[in-house]
């Protein structure tokens, strides 16, 4: 999928039409029909500073930006109490599922979207089996901590965390090493196969990964409140959401640094043109492996969190639809942009949850059964309105503009 599709060259005649959605970062003059050659050079500074929220934000001095980020983070931590906000609060909270649990679900979907964004958005590798790494993380925790496990080690949750992340990372390397030579869609089907193999193995090894019966008694994260009761209990999911949010922030910082390093630039080069990158001395297989391993580790982390909150898990969690949903979130939010991935990841969990417990006025049935049908329609509408995603990556948007002006591929 990373190769230009046959449909792209169409833009040669349509790049000038007002219909192009990607114009958020494109100078106004291009729309009125400039020739390709004159608009190819780097985008002039003036237009980056267009009157968009992001443009405005980028122009502020760093203390101002830091304050805004801080306010945003504090607000994110206060999300469990949004139901108390008059008027809009009750509209936002979910009804059929308690709001902190819905928030926790969103948090691990966001974590997965961030990890997948490294693979798909940064390095441009289409991964359809991302749930496989989620499963590896979750199963490693289950095997190490659950009393149902054949190993019978019964470790604490916290002790299993680093092991699970390392195992997930290794599984990324093991899958990536033989397969990263494959391009685009071939890689997609192989990753899909990997996730299916893991699920089938879980289903078919009743004593080891225990299929449907699953693992019970997976311990929760440690810690006690002042009154001696556990912080991470079964009643209230709020602490889990805070834990998830904290992990998300750490992961964002780590990925951001990586993206701005030599590794990130190599990913960019690979995504743009693998052959050219190779010729320029970028060790493509090495950096693709990096992307895969980091994506896998983050996905494994998501699995660790999931197992720690649920306390029980079985093979039915790791359906293929799960990976496809996360991929839809990443692309819908804006592939290659972390803010987009976060928004997309949150939406894919929030929309179906929000539809829970709402009665359909026509048939008086729960709208929940229609959640995926409605969700599918929402995905189509969003992608048609914003083909680059809700918050497009500026760089990618420019790349695409650029590519649209090139002659037809091959």
């Amino acid at each position, binding site marked *: *999928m*990373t190769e*230009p*599709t*046959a*449909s*792209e*060259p*169409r*833009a*040669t005649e*349509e*790049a000038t039409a007002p*219909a*192009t*959605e990607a114009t958020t970062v494109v100078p106004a003059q291009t729309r009125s029909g400039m020739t390709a050659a004159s608009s190819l050079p780097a985008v002039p500074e003036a237009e980056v500073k267009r009157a968009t929220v992001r443009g405005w934000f980028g122009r502020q001095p760093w203390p101002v930006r830091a304050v805004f980020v801080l306010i945003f983070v504090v607000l994110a931590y206060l999300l469990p109490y949004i139901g108390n906000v008059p008027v809009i609060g009750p509209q936002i909270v979910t009804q059929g599922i308690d709001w902190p649990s819905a928030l926790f679900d969103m948090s691990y979907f966001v974590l997965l979207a961030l990890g997948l964004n490294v693979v*798909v958005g940064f390095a441009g590798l289409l991964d359809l089996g991302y749930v496989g790494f989620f499963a590896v993380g979750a199963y490693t925790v289950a095997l190490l901590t659950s009393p149902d496990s054949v190993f019978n080690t019964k470790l604490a949750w916290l002790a299993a965390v680093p092991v699970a992340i390392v195992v997930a990372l290794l599984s990324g390397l093991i899958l990536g090493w*033989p*397969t990263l*030579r*494959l*391009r685009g*869609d*071939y890689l*997609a*089907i*192989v990753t*899909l*196969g*990997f996730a*299916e*193999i893991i699920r*089938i*193995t879980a*289903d*078919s090894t009743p004593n080891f990964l225990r299929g449907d019966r699953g693992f019970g008694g997976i311990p929760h994260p440690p810690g006690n409140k002042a009154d001696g009761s556990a912080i991470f209990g079964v009643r209230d999911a709020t602490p889990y959401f805070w834990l998830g949010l904290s992990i998300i922030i750490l992961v964002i910082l780590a990925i951001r640094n990586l993206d701005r390093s030599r590794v990130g630039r190599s990913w960019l080069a690979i995504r743009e043109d693998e052959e050219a990158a190779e010729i320029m001395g970028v060790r493509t297989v090495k950096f693709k492996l990096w992307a895969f391993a980091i994506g896998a580790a983050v996905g494994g982390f998501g699995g660790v969190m999931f197992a720690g909150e649920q306390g029980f898990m079985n093979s039915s969690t790791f359906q*293929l*639809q799960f990976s*496809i949903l996360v*991929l*839809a979130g990443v*692309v*819908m939010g804006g*592939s290659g942009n972390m803010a987009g991935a976060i928004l997309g990841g949150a939406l894919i969990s929030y929309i179906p949850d929000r539809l829970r417990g709402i009665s359909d006025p026509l048939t008086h049935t729960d709208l929940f*059964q*229609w959640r*995926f*049908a*409605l*969700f*599918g329609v929402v*995905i*189509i509408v969003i*992608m*048609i309105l914003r*083909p*680059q995603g809700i918050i497009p990556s500026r760089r*990618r948007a420019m790349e695409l503009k650029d590519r649209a002006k090139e002659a*037809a591929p*091959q």
Partner: protein
Amino acid sequence: MNFSGLFHNLGPLTITGLAQGAIIALFALGYTLVYGVLRLINFAHSEVFMVGTFAALYTWGFFGLDQNSPTPSLGGVIGYMLIGLAAAIVVSGATALLVEFVAYRPLRRRNAPPLAFLITAIGASLAISSTVGVFTHQNIKGVPPLIRPATVVHIGNTVITNLQILIIVLALGLMYGLDRFVNHTRLGRGIRAVAQNPDSAALMGVNKGRVISLVFLIGGLMAGIAAVMYVLKIGDTKFDSGFNLGIEAFTAAVLGGIGNLRGALLGGLVLGVAENYVSGVFGTQWHTAGAFVILIVILMFLPTGLLGESLGRARA
């Protein structure tokens, strides 16, 4: 592990595998045709197949047939078969065109990045399968036994039934016809031209939009026929029947070389037989896993599949 079982049942496993593979191959055509022309994975194709199974089911139901009705006479069987096939073809073809019109055409006009197409396809797939799921209450629906499997050929322990012969012959015939169509007709030349270079084709007077619709339509027709064969062979269907078989069909398309018609046939047959052998040795629950392992191994040595990518030799 049961290698002696595989050896003793090699014949039966091969025959049932070929029949299953023929259905997969017909299904895989939709993926490979669309990929060959548009270079995108038509994820919604699995639902095109699924609605075909229900179209046949409800058409037979309309004529008063259900899973408990007796097998009709030969004339009745032929009549019902044709009606079922017609219904499945029409509904699947229409669904394929609808998906193209709703999910792909607007994006093409907006020059969207390739991944956007994949995501709208996923959206369409979700919407269609869960809508059918709601209407059928996610139940398994039984299909009238139009064709009772009867042994036609008997060699050693290898038994070939009438249904298996029908499926394999039909699939081979359709493949041959489609191959002729793509390589020897004016419309087929249009398809190959668009696959090779859409802009040049458009400059030469090929109506690109129409060719793309045609490709979706052909994929839908083949999926409709595959759907009828599938329900006759399996005996029931469900709202998610397309998804699981679709994964196998897509695997088959990639195995044979995606974008390559003959590759889809070869990939489907190889996959069907290989899955059966894996089931014979390791047990049925492993059959999809085995298929993926085989796929990964083959792709490691032949990175573009068994026959390589090309739509009617358009892409060398």
